[in-house]
């Protein structure tokens, strides 16, 4: 199966590519507008600064092709920052507009806990998540972030708690997002990516 990985010149895209390849998929990395516009299955990995990701997308003119592909029905999976950019904005770079597909603002986790939220944590999941199918609530996933999306919204498929509750897995129609790194989360992470590949 072909999967288009958006490669905007930052972050560790290689590990996402390797994880998908291990599952038998055929990932291709690109930052070309036409390839993203016509993609059927898109993964947007992201680490680092929200502002850097938004700026990189806009500098390459990828915002409209991506929004076009999603509205056409392409399956989209945002990882970490790739989830956060689905929202209207982020406290991390309030002057920049996010993709705005979801309501609300990404905000920093409270200073009552050590930041970044770094390491393995469990999820509080809803019953009918497509991405978490076959994954136990005892399973851990690897997180590395200081900002997170609000925990409210019908798109919530799983929440996580660290300082406050936040969105860990979101699903709405063909739009999916995970705050953790499935490509770094051992067997449960691989299962989640496999579930994404199977969504029709």
């Amino acid at each position, binding site marked *: 199966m072909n999967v288009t990985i958006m490669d905007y010149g*930052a972050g*560790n895209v*290689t*590990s996402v590519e*390797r*994880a998908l390849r291990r599952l038998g998929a055929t990932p291709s990395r690109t930052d070309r507008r036409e390839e993203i516009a016509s993609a059927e299955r898109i993964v947007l990995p992201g*680490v*680092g*600064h929200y502002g850097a990701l938004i700026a990189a997308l806009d500098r390459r003119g990828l915002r409209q092709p991506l929004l076009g592909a999603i509205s056409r029905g392409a399956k989209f999976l945002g990882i970490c920052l790739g989830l956060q950019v689905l929202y209207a904005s982020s406290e991390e770079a309030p002057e920049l507009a996010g993709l705005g597909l979801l309501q609300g603002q990404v905000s920093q986790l409270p*200073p009552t806990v*050590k*930041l*970044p*939220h*770094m*390491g*393995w*944590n*469990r*999820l*509080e999941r809803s019953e009918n998540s497509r991405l978490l199918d076959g994954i136990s609530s005892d399973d*851990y996933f*690897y997180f*590395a*972030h*200081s900002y997170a999306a609000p925990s409210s919204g019908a798109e919530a498929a799983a929440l*996580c*708690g*660290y300082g406050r509750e936040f969105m860990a897995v979101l699903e709405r129609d063909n739009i999916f997002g995970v705050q953790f*790194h499935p*490509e*770094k*989360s*051992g*067997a449960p*992470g*691989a299962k989640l990516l496999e579930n994404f590949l199977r969504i029709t």
Partner: protein
Amino acid sequence: MSLAHRIIPCLDTDGARVVKGVHFEGLRDAGNPVELAARYNAEGADELVVLDIAASRDNRPTFIQTISRVAETLSIPLAAGGGIRSLEDARSVVRAGADKITVNTSAVEHPELISELSREFGAQAIVLAIDAKRHGARWLVHVRGGREATDLEAIVWARRGVEMGAGEILLTSMDKDGTQSGFDLELTAAISRAVTVPVIASGGAKVPSHFLDVFTTGAADAALAASIFHDRVQSIRALKEFLQQSGVQVRLPC
């Protein structure tokens, strides 16, 4: 729900092979990094650190290749370092598949390197490694593999490193390293309480109770060890089972 305490095996390499020795002296071969990485990945390690302790310029291409081959085998995060002196060095390590970059001597000499790397890769990718040794009532930072003392206080340096953009501290006690007498609980707790980022304790581990102590009294967020895992003195699985039974939250993969 809460964050699990991490167990992190460390591969000290000469670029190509895993080596071991006390305080970087009397090095001997301890195995193939790719084989060890695969074993730790399967045994339930939460993360892996790979260091080039030779850190010479000539060695770089070999070490980058090692990182790439190790990363290929892992489905857990990988931190790599040793001899990272510039943004370009860091880029090559990340491109090879590392999720995090550790910096030590060059950050002491040029603290702005921390900010530069943090801006490029994000704070979560920058691990400030500190080798600390007790001098009277204070702990001082050592550089060049611990061989050279500085007049920098470890607590002050840890705080400064975090201000400059480090997202994690890898704290090695020079006094405890290689002794197998337990982590330096006092040092670890002092640094852990002084900073707002996670602290990985290193140096001195042998038995499971050492890990329990460093997660409780030492207030560490993660604990690192090398030879006890390489030599199969301690299995990661059994260690984690002990910690869970002792009330410390850990990730036990099935």
